Every structure is written in structure tokens, then in C-alpha cells.
């Protein structure tokens, strides 16, 4: 029935939210930076894809494959050029720098693309669906998005736990100075973390843009989804982030069933409830 359908939709949406949240969580874990421009990056990726498609005529999936690694490079450069310096300028500096970046990105997009809302055309794929066990409709796009998000999260988990560099990222988030002591170059480690963050948020932004419209001012709402997923799930755990994303997605979906205007509010209220009664999140980090 309708409610089960809503839960399924919410679940699938949750994977996407988790993908949004991963970058935010990673940057905070490793560098203690909350990137206020996080959501705006997703929107920049969407507009970039739009421009590439209309400029080169390449199919969407090619554009996605090009944009995501491009954002990884941008992330690395942004960290080395802009953020690294502000890290030593004091605790307030990075927050202000990323906030400034958010404002700059939003308004540059506004000037170049105007305030009109757009979507990325996913073609027939974006709107097709199949029936599951009776009356549950599952869209192909949401399903693929969810699977892709889980795959990316698993990939990052493997990177963090099995590779030397990934281990260093985790070590750096525990104790930056000692990580330097065993040979980690902080600038490089941070650069990698930022690269992953930018790439994942770009991917998430592109997938979201296929099912939802975007305009230069939608960045903050993406940031808020990411942030709420992280807080609900709990800091310090990738799977917590997935859970947080799913809880958020399901809540929004159920809220929408009650009243479409309640969609966002429902998510916010659950976030506030978690904040009030379990501020460490549903799945607190592995170590105390």
C-alpha cells in the first residue's frame, strides 16, 4: 500500500542523502572543517554538466564520468590553494572562507545561468520504473542511485581500511600531529580527503539533478540534507551516515504522504528530535 511505497522511496532517497553526507563527514573527520559550500558544489556540478551537454552534445552518462573526476581534482586544488592556508589562520577562518565560497559560487552561477530552475534530462531512464511485489513501484533511477551510493560508500570504506593512504586519513583524523610523525604529509592527506568529498558531492548532485530541479540558490538545501544525515546517523561512522540518510529519506517520504508541504519539515523535526534526545547520533562512532 501507499505507506510501504513511501518507505521504499524514502529508503532509496536515503542512499542519495548518504552520498551527499559522505563528503561533509569526511572533511570534518579528517580536517575538522565544515564546508559550508558543500551543497553549492553539487549545484555547480549540475550546472557544469548542463553546460557540457548543451555545449558538446555528449550523452549524460559520459558527462557524469567526466565531471566527477574533474571535481576530485578541483577538490585537491581547493584544499592546497585555499583551505590549507586558512587552517593555520585560526578556527574561525575556515568556516568563514567556506561560507564566502558558498556566497561566491551561488552568485556566480546566478550571473552566468540566471535564476531559472533546470533539471538534467535523464531521458527515458529517469522516468521509467518497474513493479515490485504487487503495488510497489520502484523507479530505475532511484534504484540505480541507491546502488551507486552504496557502492561508492563501500568503496570508500575499503579505501579507508585497506590502503596505506586511507589508513593515514583515519590516523590524521585521530591525531594529526602524530600522523605527521609517522610520515604523513598533512597537505597531501587533506587534499585527498577534499578530493573525495568534492567527487562524491558532485556525483550526488548530478544524480539528484536528474530527479529534482535545481537553481543557483538550491545549494544550502543540499547542505542541510547532508548535515542532517550526518547528525542523525552519528559522527565518525560511514555506515552511520548511510543510516542517517535513510532515516531522513524515509521521514521525508512519509511526511510527504501526510501532506506534501510537510516533506522538508518532517525531516527537520526528526533531526531536531535526534539533536534533543540523542545528540551523538543513532550510531555513535566505533570508538568511544
Amino acid at each position, binding site marked *: 500500500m501507499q505507506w510501504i511505497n513511501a518507505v521504499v522511496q524514502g529508503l532509496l532517497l536515503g542512499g542519495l542523502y548518504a552520498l551527499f553526507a559522505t563528503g561533509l563527514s569526511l572533511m570534518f573527520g579528517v580536517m575538522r572543517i565544515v564546508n559550508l559550500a558543500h551543497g553549492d558544489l553539487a549545484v555547480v556540478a549540475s550546472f557544469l554538466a548542463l553546460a557540457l551537454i548543451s555545449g558538446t552534445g555528449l550523452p549524460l552518462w559520459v558527462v557524469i564520468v567526466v565531471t566527477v573526476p574533474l571535481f576530485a581534482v578541483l577538490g585537491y586544488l581547493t584544499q592546497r590553494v585555499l583551505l590549507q592556508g586558512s587552517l593555520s589562520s585560526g578556527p574561525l577562518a575556515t568556516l568563514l572562507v567556506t561560507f564566502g565560497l558558498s556566497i*561566491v559560487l551561488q552568485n556566480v552561477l546566478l550571473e552566468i545561468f540566471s535564476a531559472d530552475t533546470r533539471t538534467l534530462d535523464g531521458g527515458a531512464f529517469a522516468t521509467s520504473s518497474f513493479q515490485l511485489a504487487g503495488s510497489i513501484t520502484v523507479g530505475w533511477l532511484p534504484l540505480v542511485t541507491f546502488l551507486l551510493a552504496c557502492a561508492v560508500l563501500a568503496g570508500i570504506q575499503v579505501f579507508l581500511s585497506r590502503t596505506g593512504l586511507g589508513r593515514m586519513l583515519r590516523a590524521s583524523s585521530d591525531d594529526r600531529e602524530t600522523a605527521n610523525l609517522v610520515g604523513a604529509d598533512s597537505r597531501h592527506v587533506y587534499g585527498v580527503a577534499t578530493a573525495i568529498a568534492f567527487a562524491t558531492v558532485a556525483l550526488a548532485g548530478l544524480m539528484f539533478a536528474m530527479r529534482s530541479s535545481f537553481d543557483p540558490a538550491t545549494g544550502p538545501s543540499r547542505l542541510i540534507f547532508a548535515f542532517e544525515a550526518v547528525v542523525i546517523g552519528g559522527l565518525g561512522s560511514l555506515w552511520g551516515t548511510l543510516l542517517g540518510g535513510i532515516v531522513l529519506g524515509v521521514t521525508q517520504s512519509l511526511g510527504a504522504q501526510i501532506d506534501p508541504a510537510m516533506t522538508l519539515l518532517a525531516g527537520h523535526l526528526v533531526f531536531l528530535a535526534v539533536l534533543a534526545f540523542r545528540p551523538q547520533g543513532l550510531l555513535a562512532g566505533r570508538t568511544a
Partner: protein
Amino acid sequence: MTLSNLLTERAAANVDVRRAARTSKLSGGALLAAVVLLAALPYVVFSDVTDTLVNLYVLVALASMWNLLAGFGGLVSVGQQAFVGIGAYSVIALADLGVQPYLAVPLAAVTCVVFAVPTSWLAFRLRGDYFAVGTWVIAEVYRLLVVRVDALGGASGKGLAGLSGLDPVLRGALTYWVALALTLATVGGCYLLLRGRVGLSLMAVRDEETAASAAGIDVTRAKRIVYLVSAAGCGAAGGVITVSSLSVNPDAIFNVQWSAYMIFIVVIGGIGFVEGPLLGAVVFFTLQQLLADYGAWYLVILGAVGIAVARWLPGGLWGLVRDRTGLSLFPVGYYVRSSGHAR
């Protein structure tokens, strides 16, 4: 008398501890003269000048409140627009109930304090930078809640009742004076608060929180006081905005743009100095007027300047002035001078 008492007394006789340097006394007089001059403006200039100044005063007030919160309280909020909105809607609601709108402005500040108490309880559960985003979310929640109330105009906003009968010139002047009063109250309030015990506690916390806590300072209480004062100031500013524009729109009044303005003004002017928001607002305002024809580019430039200042000039413009000249118009610290006795 013990030996240590004796020594302390002797040492105290050798130094002269004061709040105000000579320059501060001079500047105090100058400021007073400036205030009198500004108050007289509606009699002297055309109303479009005073209308423009109202915007400047609101910016100064908002920036002072953000500076109080972040620069002195150490709480970086990107969600003060919540209280700007609550203040604005309070004025609307009170005016609908028959209260004279100008009187409703200070009442709006009170309303904001009432809302700020539970809000602070929630927001304080987030630490550091996550607090910033949390305040943003809370502002969004307030917007979404207000939009659902039809009596307040829903999604399209509402007009302000109670001022339509007034002569436009008089209304302009009254609005101007209320705005000026707002600025004096916020800047003055900041100054007085910071000179007192709360201020001392805050600066101790800002410098070294653990030590301050160990010295017996109730850190949370000090921060909460600052949060409530900031909410009140932002609420009053929201009230003035409503009185000035004669209407309210939820998307505009709860917009994070207000936070952007506050943050940039304070960052550029100088965070952690009472003078900072004043200087920053003037700079911002000038930029805004100069770049008025360039659409969104002015915000891009503003953002870029803000980034540059945050990165390379953490004390802002006033910090630069202070470092070079030692000038302090609103002294919140102490001057210790040796009185020159050789003992």
C-alpha cells in the same frame, strides 16, 4: 596584615589601572556629538537620505549582534535570520492586535528572547562548526513553520497594519529615529555588557575555555546570555525592517542572506572589537551603493573580499587600525600604567 597583603598593596600603589585611555575620552565626546547630529538629520535632509540610513543602521545593529555572538561568545551562527524573521513577524502580529508598530519593535525583541531560550537549548547540543549549520537548519524550520500559519500571511507574506494613516514624512522620520535608537541600543548594549562581568567571563572563555571553567566561570550561562541578547537585537532589527518596508515576506526575512551580510560586515570590519561592525557596515554599505548596478556581482566581490580578509587579515580593518594606533573607541579591556614611583 600578612606579608603578601603588604606586597600586593605596595604593588597596587605603583600601577594605575583604568578602563579608558585619554583617546577614548576624546572619542567618547566625538561620538556623542555625532549621535546628536544624526538625530537631527530628519530636519535637515531629504527623506531618501534618511531612508537609506535606516538600512545602514539595521546593518550595524545586526552586525553588532553577530559580533557579540561570534567575536565575544565564540558562537558562530549562520542562523540569526531566524530571529530577524521572528522579530519581523512579531511586529506584524502585534500590529494586527492593535499595538502601535513602533512600540511593537522592543516587544519583538522580547518575543525573540522567549523563542531563543528553547532554541539555545537545542543549538548548544552541537559543538563548534556543526553549531553553525545547526543554527541554519533551525532558521529554516522557523521559516517553514511560519509559512504554515495563514493568519500571518502564509507563503506570500503580509502587510503591516497601523501605520497607513501617518503622514509619509513623519513616518519616515519616526522610522529613522527608531532605527537610530536600535543602533545605539545594540552597540551601546554590547559595550555595556562586555564591560561588565559577563564580558570578562566571555573574554576569559574566548581565550582559554578550560581554564575559565576551572576558574569557576559558568561557561554555558555566559554563552546563553550572549545568545539571548543577540536574538533580542536581531529581533528588534527585524522589527525595524518591517516598519521600514511596511510588509514582510517569509522568503526574504528568513533568508540566509542576512547572515551573509552580518558575517561579511564583521569579518571585514574586525571580529571581536565593538568598533568592528561599525567600520564594516560603512565599508559594506559603500560597496553596496557603488556596485548597485552590477547585480549579483557585488555579492561575488563581497564574498571574495570576505574570504581574503578571513584568510589574511583575521582582525579585520579595525584590527589593523588598532594594531597600528592602539586606538580604542569602545574600550572593553583595561589600561595598566605604572605611576612612576620608584619603591
